[in-house]
């Protein structure tokens, strides 16, 4: 009796020792991996912080030198004059115009497509329709630019003719409208697909038709996701550079109509960066700061809307 007791105790101690050792190893591995994950996460955060710091440190002194209101609201951009002026108001307006145009063109088409894809498209057709829409997101913007130059610019020129050479706000709006389609279609349709099936069944059980259930229950239930997709699309449109440069005309002046050429903030930077020096150079970085602030605001709005959905 006593002997077996002692033996039991010993085996208990032994197994405890083994498992303690193994537990220590486990804990070490877990801690190490935790650190690896943490460092990986830090890389992107550090990148954001560095970019922010760089932009503001390099850009803000120029804004100070030019004067905030002269810089933001000045309508004349003559960086290489003997008496230079650095007003980016035409470019701010240009970016806002083409973005608004893209929304007007892209959002209705995108939303209707999303509704169709999510709730009306037969499964077999869906398999064939969705990949091309997603592919639209993967096409390089220079290719969009070529498409715009070769197809849309001549089209606008032929239709409206006259003084417009085809490189205009309208052209850029149409092209950007196409470019933001995959963002709107993809996000909106997944938002609609994420609406619980029980809502749909509930509506049908009350005697609603499929169309009515989709329009009055599913779309409203998905509205924050849909709004988020629009905001993301705005971000994409306002930040687009290459395609816009190729078709928007790029004149740094306030446009009088949608058929006038326009220069966006992004285009302003790319076009002049290669030869700019001194204050001109810094003013271009400051242009980037303004663009950056726009993007930050859009992201903030996006976060507010998506977090509202979770509540």
């Amino acid at each position, binding site marked *: 009796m006593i002997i077996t007791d002692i033996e039991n105790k010993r085996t208990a101690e032994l197994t405890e020792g083994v498992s303690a050792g193994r537990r220590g190893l486990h804990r070490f591995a877990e801690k190490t991996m935790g650190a690896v994950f943490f460092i990986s996460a830090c890389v992107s955060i550090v990148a954001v912080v560095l970019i922010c710091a760089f932009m503001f440190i390099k850009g803000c002194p120029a804004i100070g030198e030019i004067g905030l209101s002269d810089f933001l609201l000045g309508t004349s951009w003559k960086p290489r004059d003997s008496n230079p002026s650095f007003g980016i108001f035409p470019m701010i307006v240009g970016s806002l115009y083409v973005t608004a145009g893209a929304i007007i063109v892209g959002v209705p088409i995108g939303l209707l497509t999303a509704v169709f894809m999510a709730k009306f498209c037969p499964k077999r057709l869906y398999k064939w329709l969705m990949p091309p829409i997603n592919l639209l997101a993967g096409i390089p913007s220079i290719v969009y630019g070529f498409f715009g130059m070769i197809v849309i610019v001549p089209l606008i020129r032929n239709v409206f003719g006259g003084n417009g050479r085809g490189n205009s706000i309208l052209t850029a709006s149409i092209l950007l409208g196409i470019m933001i389609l995959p963002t709107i279609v993809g996000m909106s349709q997944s938002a609609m697909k994420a609406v619980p099936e029980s*809502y749909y069944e509930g509506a049908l059980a009350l005697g609603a038709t499929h169309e009515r259930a989709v329009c009055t229950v599913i779309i409203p239930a998905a509205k924050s996701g849909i709004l988020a997709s629009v905001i993301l699309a705005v971000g994409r449109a306002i930040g687009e550079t290459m395609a816009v440069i190729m078709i928007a005309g790029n004149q740094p002046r306030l446009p009088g109509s949608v058929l006038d050429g326009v220069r966006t903030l992004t285009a302003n930077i790319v076009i002049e960066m290669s030869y700019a020096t001194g204050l001109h150079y810094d003013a271009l970085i400051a242009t980037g700061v303004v663009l950056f602030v726009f993007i930050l605001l859009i992201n903030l709005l996006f976060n507010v809307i998506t977090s509202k959905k979770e509540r």
Partner: protein
Amino acid sequence: MPIKFDIKKADLFYGDFQALKNINLEIKDKEITAFIGPSGCGKSTLLKSLNRMNDLVEGCRITGDFRLDGQDIYKDIEITELRKRVGMVFQKPNLFPMSIYDNIAYGPRTHGIKKKAELDEIVETSLRQASIWEECKDRLKKSALGTSGGQQQRLCIARALAVKPEVILMDEPTSALDPISTIKIEELCQQIKNDYTIIIVTHNMQQATRISDKTAFFLHGEIVEFDTTEKIFSSPSQQKTLDYITGRFG
């Protein structure tokens, strides 16, 4: 009482699987009929074929004769009209993410009622019928999803009542609720049974005895026995029914 639902020789298949086998059932007007039986026995399936919710299931095939007041529900009645006449309350409350008022008014609006005064009146009557008016009359414009689970289920019943149906199908309406909310729903069923025909699927046999007039016992897609609830639970004629209600299987 006249016959409300008359089901004859009904078979239902999900693909190759036969979920209902030769169902014959007469459901009387203004009675509460309970469907009981183990999971997968076909009771919910039969319930859903009464307002054609099975139409949504891919590969579902139904044969036989389903008649509501003598009309074939698969041929003679428009599907939206059928669902207006045969309302449904689901297992989990499925209120829409909108205000209480808009939820209740959804059905009437669907069927073309637009006048505010009329809608107001329907909303109030439906909520009173579902005995939840007092609890939510001050928050009609607030989101319906902010209420408790039990309240949500009673709001679902109110929403179903708002289209003035003749029959209400209830698919395990209390299985996600606590005992007190369950009792409230059962009391509610008793209150409205004079005006509506109610068919309720339940796993809770006490519930069936408490509220139903008739009970149908399902097993493997067939109705083993259909009789008054009293008879089923006191002296069933089939051994299988006795085994089930005494808890020997299921």
